[in-house]
């Protein structure tokens, strides 16, 4: 599956990475070679093989729906780039 600059631009947008046409052209070559390497997977006969998501086949544990964390908002917000009155500040979204 050959990769086009438009594929790179699409992935960059989905991944929320700023990318201009020059950057995208630079990535096409590297990503194309990685995907060509990855394409070897298509040679493997996986008919009837179930996908493996987790090496130990374990299932997600459930716990009682109880509060286990205490409020540490101020502590955690100390590492935030911009906060005010306990809120994270971002550019205006709704006019």
């Amino acid at each position, binding site marked *: *599956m050959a*990769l086009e600059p438009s*594929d*790179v631009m*699409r*992935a*960059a947008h*989905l*991944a*929320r*990475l*700023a*990318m201009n046409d020059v950057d995208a052209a630079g*990535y096409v070559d*590297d*990503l194309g*070679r*990685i*995907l060509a*390497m*990855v*394409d*070897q*997977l*298509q*040679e*493997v006969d*996986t008919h009837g*093989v*179930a*996908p*493996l*998501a*987790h*090496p*130990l086949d*374990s299932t*997600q*544990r459930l*716990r009682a729906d109880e509060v286990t964390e205490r409020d*540490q908002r101020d*502590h*955690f917000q*100390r*590492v*935030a*780039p*911009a906060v005010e009155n306990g809120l*994270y500040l*971002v*550019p*205006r*979204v709704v006019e």
Partner: protein
Amino acid sequence: MHDQTLTQLARALADGEVSSRELTQTLLGRIERLDGRLNSFISITQEQALAAADAADALRAKGQAGPLTGLPLALKDIFCTNGVKTSCGSKMLDNFIAPYDACVVEKLKAAGTVSLGKTNMDEFAMGSSNENSHYGPVKNPWDLDAVPGGSSGGSAAAVAAGLVPAAMGTDTGGSIRQPAAFCGITGLKPTYGRVSRYGIIAYASSLDQAGPMARTAEDCALLLGAIAGHDLRDSTSVARGVPDYRAELGESLSGLKIGLPREYFGDGLAPEVEQAVREAIKVYESLGASIHEVSLPHTHYAIPAYYVIAPAEASSNLSRFDGVRFGHRCDAPSDLIDLYKRSRDEGFGSEVKRRILIGTHTLSEGFFDAYYTQAQKVRRLIRQDFLDAFEEVDVLMGPASPTPAFDLGANKDPVSMYLQDIYTIAVNLAGIPGISVPAGFVGSRPVGLQILGPHFAESQLLNVAHQFQQATDWHQRRPALAEESA
């Protein structure tokens, strides 16, 4: 002092030959003197280290010291450490002071160990040479022109240079075992789920696992006992008792069945590395083990499967770096999308972006089944190869890496760098434990023997590695740089 093992230092502390403060000061002095040439540390936490050392000495004075009390070590900068910068080797987290401790850090603190600082690494653990760090490459103490391996390259170099007797690493595709091999130390990747991932900055969550890097298997056993165990805060942590990993270290290897995977001795393996590994296997024969050829037929597909699964998980895990809650934020964003996009573009290095883009592409509509689902099916076949092999033999052995440490700057092409991990990556896909032990040299550069075992067979693996270290002295060799007097 600096060339002793953790086990020897524990004895010296217990016998009152040295205090934890003296030991800590000696090693901090070595870091200051030698690390300018290695760049193995990102942060040195002198103040906290001396406070922890004093607390350890006080505990010992009261007769309350445990086996690890007062022992110095270092932490890969991927472990969140309360009140300490935790950068993960990235500009994105250059300003991040972790507000809590990782489970591994909690346990090591509770055991009384003294962390001297945070070690350099490939950005977000993505790399095999430590050249992808925002803080610059680490040099190999055996040869300053060579890479130390990656991604736990700082941890490996610091131990090899005698800056610390042990360090914590993480291993997603070989990031403990390959740098351990390149730097001539012992590094263990435990079974997936054995050590809690809580507070370890996530790269690929179904593959990531933390483990010890030290001078001997015995020291790795001591440390694994301290960090292993069930943790409710990691949903994949396994509820299973933690054995005394040192208890089995005296077992004879008579009757041990060692499998040599045919695929691990094929094209691409440097002849000198093969020779060193074959010599090591002869040592095992002399210790009473029998050698059997086995096959892991899907070996060739491990790297392709990994480079779908790991980037897919990374693209999801790294979406948390949004410039809003922590980490780098761009200047003067025009709107929210601009804030996300420029913060991430500025904060991530090129290899991290490459993997995010690959992961995003392969998970996107129209490509998901061909890439991701197929890779997960191949992953099952790869795991089955190991399960089948362990029906026939007790452990597998082979090289940790096809070559010794390569030169800095030698692997410019990402795919050729990825192919270096051919012998380590399948182990993470299967979730089994693996250890690399020093087994010789090619010129001045060390060679690692990799030993693999079934899920949760760490006790046996550690003993198999330990017996080799009772019969050989490769693990006692030190680079000239480590022996330089001040």
